[in-house]
């Protein structure tokens, strides 16, 4: 919240109202996600077994993972859009999710994850970091939307095809079906062990990303002006690269890839913070967490043959949003 304090000078009251609204929304959704599930339980039944087991071991980890992952996606989306000064930047679109997924698939299906659990978030982080580094090498800074998206597609497809290779070589015949579902993203039936596994890398990533607000604001004036204001551009890029890789990489490693949250949320919130990228960071984290929780609750409520994945719902919301964004871009740059 320090970022909000330092960057809220111009619109402090409206920022406070924005935080209050988002915070309230998040609390309501958090309570809802503890109450709603496959088994209908009265509030009293939630505190005696077997209801208490369901609450503590099944619904609580699901809620915490939703907040950690949604917050990571929203925050890194806002930071990447600010850094690349490009509204299309997002961990999924630019290939970080697919690459983190590849890292996780490799350790999952060759048995490393069951031997050393800590390998899993690290593999997600390594995959995510490799994607950001590659993107940077391919597209460079201040790249046009086209270059950025092309580089992102290249990285995504490369990671997806390597995932397919890993599947081909996986020792288990069940792996193909399993990974197809896993890649859709799900928070279902995770445990507190999963939360414990990723909480440190995710929070470290949040600290790195959250510390970039002032520099991102300066960056809107151009690289040269930002540097004259004392912004270390190289350091800024490193913080965002590692922050995104840590937070999103670790999340993807336990919950699969969940698309578009990082794209949609900063765009929805940008008008409320006067288009200042620094002030957008923490509201995007809150908004990302809220959107992912809402999608996860919808996934539990919508009656379908098998439970819908929250990743499917965010993609269904996000893809039309992406179309609209492309059209808007076309009007700006005919």
């Amino acid at each position, binding site marked *: 919240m320090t970022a909000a304090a330092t960057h809220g000078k111009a619109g402090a009251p409206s920022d406070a109202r924005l935080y209050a609204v988002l915070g309230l929304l998040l609390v309501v959704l958090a309570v809802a996600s503890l109450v709603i599930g496959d*088994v209908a339980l009265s509030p009293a039944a939630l505190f005696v077994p077997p209801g208490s087991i369901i609450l503590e071991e099944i619904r609580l980890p699901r809620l915490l993972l939703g907040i950690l992952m949604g917050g990571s996606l929203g925050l890194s989306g806002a930071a990447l859009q600010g850094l690349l000064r490009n509204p299309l930047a997002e961990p999924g679109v630019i290939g970080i999710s697919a690459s983190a997924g590849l890292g996780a698939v490799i350790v999952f*299906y060759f048995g490393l994850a069951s031997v050393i659990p800590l390998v899993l978030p690290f593999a997600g982080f390594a995959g995510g970091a490799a994607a950001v580094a590659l993107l940077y090498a391919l597209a460079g800074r201040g790249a046009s939307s086209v270059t950025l998206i092309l580089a992102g597609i290249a990285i995504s497809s490369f990671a997806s095809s390597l995932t397919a290779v890993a599947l081909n070589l996986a020792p288990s015949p*069940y*792996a193909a079906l*399993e990974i197809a579902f896993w890649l859709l993203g799900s928070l279902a039936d995770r445990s507190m062990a999963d939360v414990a596994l990723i909480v440190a890398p995710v929070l470290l990533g949040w600290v790195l990303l959250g510390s970039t607000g002032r520099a991102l604001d300066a960056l809107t004036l151009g690289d040269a002006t930002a540097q004259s204001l004392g912004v270390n551009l190289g350091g800024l890029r490193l913080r965002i690269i590692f922050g995104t890789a840590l937070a999103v990489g670790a999340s993807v490693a336990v919950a699969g890839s969940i698309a578009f949250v990082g794209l949609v949320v900063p765009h929805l919130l940008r008008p409320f913070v006067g288009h200042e990228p620094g002030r957008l960071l923490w509201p995007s984290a809150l908004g990302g967490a809220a959107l992912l929780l809402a999608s996860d609750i919808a996934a539990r409520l919508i009656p*379908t043959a098998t439970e819908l994945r929250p990743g499917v719902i965010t993609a269904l919301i996000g893809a039309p949003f992406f179309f609209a964004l492309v059209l808007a871009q076309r009007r700006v740059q005919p």
Partner: protein
Amino acid sequence: MRLAAVLAVALAVSSAAAAPPPRVASLHLCADQLVLALADRDQIASVTFLAAEPAASPMADAARGVPVNHGKAEEILALHPDLVLAGPFSARATVGMLRGLRLRVVDLPYTTNFDAIRAQIGEVAALLGHSERGARLIAEMDARLAALAPPPGPRPTAVLFQPGGFTARPGSLEDAAIAAAGFDNLAAVRGLWPHTDRAGSGRIALETLVASAPDVLILGGDADHLPAEQIRLLAHPALRDMPSKVIRIPARLWNCGGWFTADAVAMLAAARPVADLR
């Protein structure tokens, strides 16, 4: 080439003339079990490579040294078997090709109850020319099942939980084994399917499982042969906290229906007396 073709025809003719016992090749793990239990060793042209894997195959010991195939038509053709046994997941293209090449291919369906198991043992034993061995195997299985039959009175409850969240659908082999061991299969009796599961995938939600509080929680599946993600579900802390007695049934005992499924019934029945006290 011509010589090979002539030889092949000659071989086929000679083996047909020498009629019983037919040389048999199996394309499916479930058929492997029957072949290994019922056929003479020199009758067996080939079984699948899975037949020798102890985790998947109850007859793994008997499969040692028997030639293996990987379910490919070429491998089978080269063996010139008189009879090919295929199963429900054998590639249809392979089976079609073998039939097109005038091999006798018999499809064996999955057996989902003990009557079907008896019928299949009898059918394959007759095909292999060893009906008396089949009758003996069936009699042994029936004697075991009779010895394991539950006492009259209230039945303890059980729920099966397998990798991926699958449980025992009504009418499944697992359901039949659970019932034979004297349990009420709660998933089938109470219909513990998610309200979303109209397709009948046979999955049970983790929350529903915990809330059902059965006397016995049956965990299925073998850690060695599944991806870590599915195993993780079986290791979920919520299961550990359930008050139910937990037993593990190796997947090989009921992946295929056979006389060895009685071993699963025996393991389940062994968990019964404690459950009766509850």
